[in-house]
């Protein structure tokens, strides 16, 4: 059972906050270097999709979600219907519902403002390397430090290198097919997920269904493809469990 302490809205620069912040930073620092190529690619991809530098950085500050940014670029560039763009962004970030559910106990007793900020700042990497330590701690100051320090570091690093990509994109010739960087980025995100068999099945089914259903109006093939992929992954998981029992 987690103890509930009253927590002030102000930054508590007390010792346990600082110790938590140091620990979170130490855990996340090595992994955070991996954000740099993503950020550069995202910056370049937004420019090659036709955004001005201001629009690109505007999206980056407002959205702050790399996968959803890169994933929706081709739809925005093609003038796809707004609902499809928003739905695609939502699906691409659905994984965070699971992360959010896992982290929720750590935010017991925290202010609404901090929870809102955390909702905007939560990234895969911080969840991956810090969540276990955060959930093991019973000190809300320590937990908040361990979450917010690496999260802010990720935000600063991301904004800086996206800006570098946005500014650098102008000096690369137009006919270098830079939009393909976005496709590569999506593939690199996909590859580690498919180490698990049902996940691979979900990806194959989703991809092939999206290709097969390309004739559907309003780019609906994308959404139906995703649903087919989820169903296929789920089915593969069940078959796998049954086979192990047999």
């Amino acid at each position, binding site marked *: 059972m987690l103890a509930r302490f009253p927590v002030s809205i102000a930054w508590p620069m007390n010792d346990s906050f600082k110790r938590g912040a140091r620990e979170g930073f130490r855990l996340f620092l090595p992994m955070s270097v991996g954000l740099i190529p993503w950020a550069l690619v995202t910056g370049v991809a937004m420019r090659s999709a036709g955004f001005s530098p201001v629009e690109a950085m505007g999206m980056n500050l407002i959205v702050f979600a790399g996968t959803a940014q890169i994933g929706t670029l081709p739809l925005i560039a093609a003038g796809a219907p*707004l609902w499809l763009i928003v739905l695609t962004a939502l699906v691409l970030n659905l994984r*965070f519902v699971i992360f959010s559910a896992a982290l929720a106990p750590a935010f017991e007793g925290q202010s609404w403002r901090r929870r809102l900020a955390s909702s905007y700042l939560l990234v895969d990497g911080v969840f991956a390397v810090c969540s276990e330590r955060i959930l093991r701690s019973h000190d809300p100051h320590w937990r908040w430090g361990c979450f917010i320090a690496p999260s802010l570091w990720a935000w600063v690093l991301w904004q800086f290198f996206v800006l570098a990509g946005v500014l650098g994109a102008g000096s690369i010739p137009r006919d270098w097919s830079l939009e393909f960087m976005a496709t590569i980025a999506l593939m690199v995100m996909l590859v580690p997920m498919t180490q698990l068999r049902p996940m691979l099945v979900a990806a194959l089914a989703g991809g092939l269904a999206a290709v097969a259903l390309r004739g559907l109006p309003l780019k609906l093939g994308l959404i139906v493809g995703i649903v087919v992929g989820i169903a296929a992954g789920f089915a593969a998981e069940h078959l796998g469990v049954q086979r192990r029992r047999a």
Partner: protein
Amino acid sequence: MIEGAWLWITFVLIALATTGPRGSFILLGARVRLPPVLQRALRYAPAAALAALVAPDLLLDGDTLDPANPKLAAALVVLLAATRSRNPWLPFIAGMAVLLVLRKGLGW
């Protein structure tokens, strides 16, 4: 291309769509529980979505199926780089190099 005010409205809506899932349980608190079946189904959403976005770009030329194209060849190199190496830059460098050589060097 979506332009002007609509582009900014699109950004705000995407922000809501991406912050929503991140905030869901952090904002609602730990009292609310996600049904386990839904939780397991949701695990497959990102893989399915990423593949559904990538596959048409690699396999289609306009609306017709065309598997023999430079993008797919480059994608295979990207797959190789992403699975064999831990260098985060390699898939981008190798993939773009193959695509550029095939398109500009060989005129494919």
